[in-house]
């Protein structure tokens, strides 16, 4: 499909157009490029309107609300940075920042390393490859509610399968309270979040790997490159684009993920697994939309920096 002509083209086309003969017709005819450009703009207009209504407006509205003392059903008044200052004074908020960073960095690192490893494995001509590729999708296809409740049951101190296995193997003498022990709660949430999300990475990496020309590997092999050198010099540069986009998307999803923490620990024990979405949820319980919005909006600078870095890297790639 042809892209709409830039405005400069339209202006130039207008300037180049012959003068309309007087008395012939007062209606000015558009050139072909002008016509195509306008058609293009009108075709994308519905999408632009949808984005403005469904994305930009709520986004700006949330930012505005975070600077007000708005409660449910009340317009509220502008209070400047009061909500943010209130949040920063809360011990929960500091724990929330720390926990969110730990959760996101750990889960993304695990997904990157293991997701790449599994994708590389499934890209090899192994037996039953198609079946494995299908099975790997199961955690992602499962509803989040079911997945995290299942993990909670698996990790339960009494009757939980993981405790049963650990005790049966003699690795522990008594049950381990994974979700209520401060040191183990976050690792448990990380494990469950990784398990639920890694198939997306595997499938995205696998699709990218299948597009890497075999000739590049053959040429590298002929030049004497070993497996690691081929991975570093052929595979990584070829799929870098996909990796960056997947990191960006998955980071946003993981940061905004509510179900994992809420269903497994409700942010506890104490604030050991409190994350931004759960803290915002607590704010909503008191009908204080302004404070809840401030919790969510306080993540924007982090996302902004992340998106900027990744967009910059992608631009450099294109250049």
């Amino acid at each position, binding site marked *: 499909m042809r892209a709409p002509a830039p405005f400069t083209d339209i202006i130039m086309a207008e300037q180049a157009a012959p003068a309309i003969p007087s008395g012939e017709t007062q209606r000015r005819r558009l050139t072909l490029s002008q*016509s*195509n450009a*306008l*058609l293009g703009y*009108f*075709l994308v*207009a*519905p999408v632009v*309107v949808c984005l403005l*209504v469904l994305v930009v407006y709520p986004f700006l509205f949330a930012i505005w609300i975070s600077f007000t003392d708005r*409660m*449910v*059903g*009340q317009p509220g008044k502008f209070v400047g940075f009061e909500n943010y200052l*209130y949040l920063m*004074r*809360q*011990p929960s908020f500091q724990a929330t920042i720390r926990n969110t960073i730990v959760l996101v960095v750990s889960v993304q690192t695990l997904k990157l390393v293991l997701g790449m490893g599994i994708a590389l494995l499934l890209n090899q001509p192994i037996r039953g490859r198609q079946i494995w590729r299908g099975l790997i999708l199961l955690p992602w296809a499962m509803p989040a509610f079911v997945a995290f409740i299942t993990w909670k049951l698996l990790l*339960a*101190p*009494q*009757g939980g399968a993981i405790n049963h296995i650990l005790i049966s193997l003699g690795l522990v003498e*008594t*049950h381990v*309270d994974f*979700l*209520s022990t*401060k040191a183990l*709660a976050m690792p448990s949430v990380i494990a469950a979040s990784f398990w639920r999300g890694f198939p997306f990475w595997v499938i995205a990496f696998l699709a990218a790997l299948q597009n890497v020309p075999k000739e590049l590997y053959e040429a590298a092999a002929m030049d004497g490159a070993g497996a690691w050198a081929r991975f570093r010099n052929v595979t990584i540069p070829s799929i870098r684009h996909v990796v960056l986009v997947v990191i960006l998307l998955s980071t946003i999803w993981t940061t905004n993920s509510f179900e994992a923490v809420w*269903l*497994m*620990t*409700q*942010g*506890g*024990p*104490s*604030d*050991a697994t409190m994350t931004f979405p759960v803290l915002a949820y*607590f704010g*909503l*319980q*008191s*009908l*204080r*939309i302004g404070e809840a919005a401030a919790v969510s909006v306080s993540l924007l600078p982090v996302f902004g920096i992340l998106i900027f870095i990744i967009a910059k890297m992608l631009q450099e790639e294109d250049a």
Partner: protein
Amino acid sequence: MRRVPTKWQRALQIMTLLLLLAVAAACAAPAAAPAPADGGGEAAGETASDMPAAEGTFTYWGGLIFSETANQMLVDRIEQWGAERGVDVEVVMINQNETVQRVSAAIEAGTMPDALDVGRTFMDLLAIQEQLEPLDDLYAEIGDSVGGWLPAADESTNPDRIDGHRYGIPFSLGGNVLYRRADVLEPAGFTEAPATWEEIADMSRAAQSPPDTYGMGFALSNVGDANITTTMLQAWGGRIADDAGTTCTIDSAETRAFLEWITTAFNDGLFPPGATTWDGAGDNVAYQSGNAIFIANPGSVYLYMRDEDPELGDATRYSAFPAGPAMRVAPVDANLRVIPTSSKNKELAVDLLKYLADPEFMKEYYYHAIYGPAAQGYVDAPIFTESPVHQGLLDLALNGTFGSLPDVNNPALSEYQTNFLTPRMIQRIVVDGVSIDDAIAETQEACQAIYDKYNE
């Protein structure tokens, strides 16, 4: 000569039309101004011809409870009313844990139902936000028809607490009853109900057998059930705020004494594993699986045992909350039916609320539900003599301490509770290992920050 439109011009026309339609839909004028509530004053036996036609479908949000039969009874009753009045009715049963979120979203979106069930604290918050219709006349009229309200139900709509009006019609009183495993306690020599919280800890120490059984099946996590710890704190003489309801008074010798007791109990292993991260069903599961000796529960566990595990039911005894060193606190609070200011069918909603208050229906409803009665006319329902847990609920309805007494029931206290500050104070000690003094200081500060928001 008529010019044939080009391809793009046709597309342009279609797009313009679609855009105009979208803008028109988005900017559609809101519904007509709602009719005033409480002005009808109709008797409880209205017919279709007496009632105004419903504007659109009449929507009711009922609070989902553990008894499927009770839920269905409410739905059937409202649908029966709709059929009798010639009103198209939609009844949506919503999880009570999600009421706040659902209602908040509906208020913002302008999609509130015509009437709904809410808890008392949420009713207070909504009334302050001017989201509810005052129902003073209706309250009095229904009260007369049901033999008068019980004191706790009356207090739940106390006009002095909001702005001189009553905003809800109580339909039940609820609270926690103490469940105990007689089959575990009696062999250990404990045949009577515990008279104090300290006795519960002592009985647990003597009777429990970890990892099979633990004594104190009380949540200490970030869920509503864990606010039972605020009740315990009050029983020790501790208070969340002063008598004016404006200044937090967490930092007290009574709070220290309570924290010493409960953290010792935790460290002695009297709480089942996972109690600090339980969800709302954690204590139910612990008791139903035989893992807890004591729990506090309104009645859902009783219904489960009645229907699914009669053996455990036979081994269970029920009693009111015990006393602490300072007093006995047994909180009772109301569930109410309210009419939003946004309702387009207020007159119908008023009629429905009268219809639902019918004593014969309510007596049948209580048989399946897990509530105590709200009015004198409901007290003689047979279930309140037949079922031990309903006897406990009746006792609670008649003799319990209303709401958060001895603390002042106000929105600041509600926010304190929805932030679970008391159980989180305990978690800071038993999970994070901070000292009792530091945990109290943190909680005092967080509590005062909440109260200050309402003091402005």
